[in-house]
């Protein structure tokens, strides 16, 4: 029945179109859902609204799992000669997508004015990952940064000022020691801080490295700097949080359980993505504080999340239609709705100027922290053969955290492994 309705409405639509002489364009959009919440439904609603406003465009938004699943599907489909028009993919995949020759730059389809006002209107920190060799390869959409959530009630109980969260590494250790609570048999009932290290520890680690004044890679994605002293220091600091200062749980700390550990009072401070803001804000039974990550030599975080990518292999008309949709989706009104519903950081200054967004910030001042932090944000770790090189770094961080290697040894090994992989791309 649904099929019949669909096809009859399609017939009707086609009839209407043929009369108005416009030709229908069918677009395919692959999108992942990386954080909880209602992201999938919101994307569906957005595409439906767009189709209602633009009768000559049909958008098929296909939910394709996690970021990794979406990349896999997009690559497989493209290799099979059936690429989607658009896909929201992890911004760090840019080198791989270029290398495989699957995506094209947006620039040639845009006027000079569009390049300046639209593409140029995104925060530089969010453009950094996909603006390569003078061309725009991705349009920032679902982007995030890590922030520090803290429990104001726990701060009060420990005799700390709840309005003055630690702003540098020394203060973090000092506050962490006061916030770590042990019971009579010396078991910890509340940890000072929690920085997750399962799965992708490189992300919070990169924030520590940047705060320590280090860079992990070059812009061309062909070099890594794992064995630099400032990087080694950052990893030593990460390890010492549990080993020396005993303010963080030992061993690998899980990502997925981090919001719950924080909400349950198992930790007084937690560093995790802004993508969890909506969840934590609505479920916190205590007074919630959100702060920038503490600095050492400087403030600093890496961005994360996904961009719109434009796939090769379509005629100009449908590519232009796809671009028009992305322009609409990143326009202030739509982007504000998206950001409020998901917790992703609105990627353009003009989005923060909308009434919706201003009201949201009044309700959830934590959202503003992520925006202010953008000024100190840099590109997320990304190189050629990104997944493999990133895994080398992840393994090194894990080895140091569990004490199988010293921070220095782990990072030196990682550097030589990464060199072996990237050698090919340095000509």
């Amino acid at each position, binding site marked *: 029945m649904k099929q019949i309705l669909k096809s009859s409405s399609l017939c009707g639509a086609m009839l209407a179109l043929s009369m108005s002489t416009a030709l229908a364009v069918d677009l395919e959009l692959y999108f992942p859902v990386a954080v909880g919440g209602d992201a999938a439904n919101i994307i569906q609603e957005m595409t439906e609204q767009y189709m209602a406003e633009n009768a000559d465009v049909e958008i098929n938004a296909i939910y394709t799992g996690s970021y990794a699943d979406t990349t896999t599907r997009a690559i497989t489909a493209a290799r099979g000669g059936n690429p989607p028009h658009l896909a929201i993919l992890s911004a760090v995949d840019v080198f791989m997508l270029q290398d495989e020759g699957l995506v094209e730059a947006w620039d040639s389809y845009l006027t000079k004015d569009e390049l300046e006002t639209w593409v140029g209107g995104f925060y530089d920190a969010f453009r950094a990952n996909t603006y390569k060799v003078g061309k725009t390869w991705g349009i920032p959409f679902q982007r995030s940064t890590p922030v520090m959530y803290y429990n104001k009630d726990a701060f009060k109980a420990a005799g700390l000022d709840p309005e003055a969260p630690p702003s540098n590494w020394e203060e973090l250790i000092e506050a962490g020691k006061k916030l770590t609570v042990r019971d009579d048999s010396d078991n*910890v009932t509340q940890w000072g801080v929690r920085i997750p290290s399962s799965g992708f520890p490189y992300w919070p680690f990169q924030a520590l490295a940047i705060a320590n004044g280090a860079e992990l890679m070059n812009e061309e994605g062909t070099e890594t700097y794992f064995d630099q002293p400032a990087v080694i220091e950052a990893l030593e600091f990460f390890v010492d949080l549990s080993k020396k200062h005993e303010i963080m749980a030992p061993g690998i700390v*899980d990502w997925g359980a981090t919001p719950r550990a924080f909400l349950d009072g198992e930790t007084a401070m937690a560093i995790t993505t802004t993508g969890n803001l909506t969840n934590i804000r609505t479920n916190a039974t205590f007074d919630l504080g959100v702060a920038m990550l503490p600095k050492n030599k400087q403030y600093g975080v890496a961005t994360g999340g996904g961009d719109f990518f434009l796939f090769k292999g379509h005629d100009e008309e449908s590519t232009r239609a796809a671009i028009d949709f992305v322009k609409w989706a990143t326009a202030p009104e739509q982007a504000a709705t998206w950001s409020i519903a998901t917790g992703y950081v609105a990627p353009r200054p003009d989005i923060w100027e909308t009434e919706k967004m201003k009201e949201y910030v009044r309700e959830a001042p934590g959202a503003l922290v992520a925006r202010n932090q953008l000024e100190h944000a840099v590109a997320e770790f990304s190189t050629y053969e990104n997944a*493999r090189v990133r895994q080398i770094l992840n393994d*090194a961080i894990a080895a140091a955290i569990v004490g199988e290697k010293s921070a220095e040894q782990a990072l030196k090994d990682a550097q030589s492994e990464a060199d072996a992989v990237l050698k090919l791309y340095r000509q």
Partner: protein
Amino acid sequence: MAAPERVFTKRPQIMIKREWINAWLLLMPALLLLFGFTHLPAVQTVLDSFWSTPRGQRPAVFLGLDNYERMLSDAVFIKAMINNAIYAAITIPASIALALSMALFVSRKILGQGLLRMAYFTPTVLPLIAVANIWLFFYLPGFGLFDQIRGLFGLSPVNWVGQPSTALYAITAVTVWNQAGFFMIFFLAALQTIPQSLREAAALEGASSWVFFWRVTWPLIMPTTLFVSVNATINAFRMVDHVFVMTQGGPNNASILLLYYIYDQGFRFWDTSYAATLTVVMVVILAVVGIGQFFLLDRRVHYR
């Protein structure tokens, strides 16, 4: 004399031909699917393992055995093989023992038999991904189920999945828990087929229940045990879904298994030819073990 013979031989030949054509036609759909989706990819995998991975502008080049050499000097591959051996060495006997004891327990007439059987079978019905998420919360250091129980005895929390010494065993336990219920069903069916008269005869002879189990039950259910052990062996290489959820092979590859590593190489690193090489190794291992189990053990399995 020659003529009648020709008549007699010709007719059956036509019959045979027609039967053959019919047989082939009937087999064709299944054969096509089998060749298209099983045998061709298998052959293709072997061929791919001799070539390099094509990337963008660089087409594949013939490498010969380079991928295999690389594999032997790949520390993560060695780690995955050792881990998988430990994983198999624990999950296979443990699931069989647990399944058999559960089956023996619920095959007797006890109160709430149906409920108990269902309870034992439930883990199998749940998808492994969901199971892994539940167990992840059991394992949470400090406030997970296990640490709360340990807390009652004043023991300190353990980061079960987050330290290299326990991560692999934490995963192994989930596998045993998940598949034992499924194997129990087979044992339960096998136990039903043991004639009641044997039990009565043993009782008359005054055999203890242990002697009865060891001398009567165990030999009679041997074919089932073989079937279950083959399945458990395959599962030891196949069931890695929970690794994705619980440890992602970490920390520092402490819990990496062969199939998980193949996925990493193939679909995260896009090194498809190296993934093909690893796949060949896994298929060879499975084939050797499977054939070995059937041919070597089969003779001693059927009680006559």
